[in-house]
């Protein structure tokens, strides 16, 4: 039996709760702002998908604050990175949405935790600079667990007393999609009956500017022009931060406690490009195969898909590869499901991207709408044959295909089914 989603929590550039995220998606409201990294007005990167309501810019936890309503004990905060604070807030929302209390997870050997983040480059830099300043004599004892890429799993497992699977994923921008996929498999295999999937990232200079040095970030200063997936004039992605958490459960575990299924995770697939370290296969070969495998795993065909949540980040190469891959799977069969690239609104949240799209799919089902591409002006020539609505499409999708791709050519896709269409 396929797992069902029973809760979702959001700390995103377009809102920090379900209602505000849904409104932003529905009305095409973006969360991209002007920023000045490192106090340098001459940097070409002028915008980012910022997280609002949190003050976590300092490398010192004593300087941090977060929105009211989240109690994070001081000894927990000390081990967290800024994006770990986002993650706790997203998990608290997801648990509440699912009708669970933290005590329901504590010590339950059938609950697992699947995390994705790139770690905190800012804290690693700060902690190592502190160590080097005293020539290695001392350093922050929590420097490792607060900054390396497993920081979410270390801290959240301890905070929520997780005793089932605890693991982290490091496939760059496909990381949280892998986290969701492997969690789904563990539930299908009967190893667990519940999993928390969380992705989180920081939108600061240390996390984002290195991508500018790869020439991967947009240098548009206008927040409405910078992130334009599939547009002929796109010039790179807009870096973004936040956290999203999902609760998935086996249908029987959800039914036992009277939880409402919000979506079914009907299948997933992955395939790699076998191509370049940081550029997609020019025709999206791996992504095409990943989509086909996800559809096969979900036991559906391309004609069963009502909407595609694209990975499209607004980079010239990546969007082109995805457009061509979608065209091969869908347009080549005369199919034109609407495609939405929500990174036009959020910016690219890196490892968080996949689970964020998954949670947006949940909102599409409950809110009966499909996000469009509000910043798209003129679609690039390689998008010929694709349905790229500018505005929101009304009506409830029955099945959504959600794509993600990461460095090294990792491609991961999921198929989600609306609650009223489960077992159709």
């Amino acid at each position: 039996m396929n797992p069902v989603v029973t809760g979702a929590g959001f700390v995103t550039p377009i809102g920090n709760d379900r209602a505000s995220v849904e409104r932003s998606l529905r009305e095409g409201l973006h969360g991209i702002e002007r920023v000045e990294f490192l106090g340098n007005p001459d940097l070409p990167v002028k915008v980012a998908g910022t997280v609002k309501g949190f003050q976590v810019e300092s490398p010192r936890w004593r300087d941090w604050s977060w929105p009211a309503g989240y109690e994070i004990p001081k000894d927990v905060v000390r081990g967290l990175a800024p994006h770990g604070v986002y993650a706790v807030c997203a998990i608290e929302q997801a648990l509440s949405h699912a009708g669970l209390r933290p005590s329901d997870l504590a010590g339950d050997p059938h609950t697992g935790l699947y995390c994705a983040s790139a770690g905190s480059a800012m804290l690693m830099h700060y902690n190592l600079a502190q160590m080097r300043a005293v020539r290695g004599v001392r350093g922050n004892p929590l420097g490792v667990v607060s900054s390396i890429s497993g920081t979410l799993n270390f801290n959240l497992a301890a905070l929520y007393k997780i005793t089932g699977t605890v693991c982290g994923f490091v496939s760059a921008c496909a990381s949280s999609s892998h986290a969701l996929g492997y969690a789904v498999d563990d539930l299908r295999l009967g190893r667990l009956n519940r999993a928390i999937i969380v992705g989180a990232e920081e939108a600061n200079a240390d996390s984002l500017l290195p991508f500018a040095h790869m020439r991967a970030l947009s240098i548009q200063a206008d927040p409405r022009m910078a992130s334009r997936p599939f547009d002929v004039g796109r010039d790179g992605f807009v870096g973004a931060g936040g956290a999203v958490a999902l609760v998935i459960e086996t249908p029987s575990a959800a039914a036992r406690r009277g939880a409402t299924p919000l979506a079914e995770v009907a299948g997933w697939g992955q395939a790699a490009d076998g191509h370049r370290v940081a550029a997609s296969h020019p025709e999206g070969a791996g992504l095409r195969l990943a989509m086909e495998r996800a559809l096969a795993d979900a036991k559906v065909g391309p004609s069963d898909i009502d909407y595609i949540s694209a990975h499209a980040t607004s980079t010239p190469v990546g969007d082109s590869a995805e457009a061509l891959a979608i065209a091969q799977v869908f347009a080549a069969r005369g199919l034109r499901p609407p495609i939405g690239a929500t990174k036009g609104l959020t910016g690219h949240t890196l490892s968080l991207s996949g689970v964020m799209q998954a949670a947006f799919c949940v909102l599409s089902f409950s809110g009966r709408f499909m996000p469009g591409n509000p910043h798209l002006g003129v679609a690039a020539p390689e998008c010929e044959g694709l349905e790229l609505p500018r505005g929101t499409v009304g009506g409830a999708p029955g099945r959504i295909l959600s794509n993600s791709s990461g460095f090294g050519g990792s491609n991961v896709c999921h198929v989600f089914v609306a609650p009223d269409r489960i077992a159709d």
Partner: protein
Amino acid sequence: MTPLPDSVPPPALGGFPPEVLEAYQRYRTKADLGAAEEVVIAAAIDYRPASASLTRGVSEESRLLEDLGYDSVAVAELIFFIEDVFETTISNEDILAVRTVGDLRACVVRKLSAKAGAA
């Protein structure tokens, strides 16, 4: 770290109450070891794991592990804080001899006295 001017509290003290910052200033400006002890005791209370319940108030006799709920990592954090703020080094051997808040206070005073003597 570049030594801070005496008038600027180190960043690690951010968020501590004014009386602790004031005690730290007294230590820096007047070499008042009693004031340094106040900072050490405030830190021992501050770094205590939140999940541990206190059955009694914190005193000289309070044991870090048994009474205040410290684990080995929290002890390391407390020591790092003290080293950072007072620009001193506390060895593993010193730490192993510390069981109570009073032991810690005495250990820090010994370090700071030795440092003042050396200067």
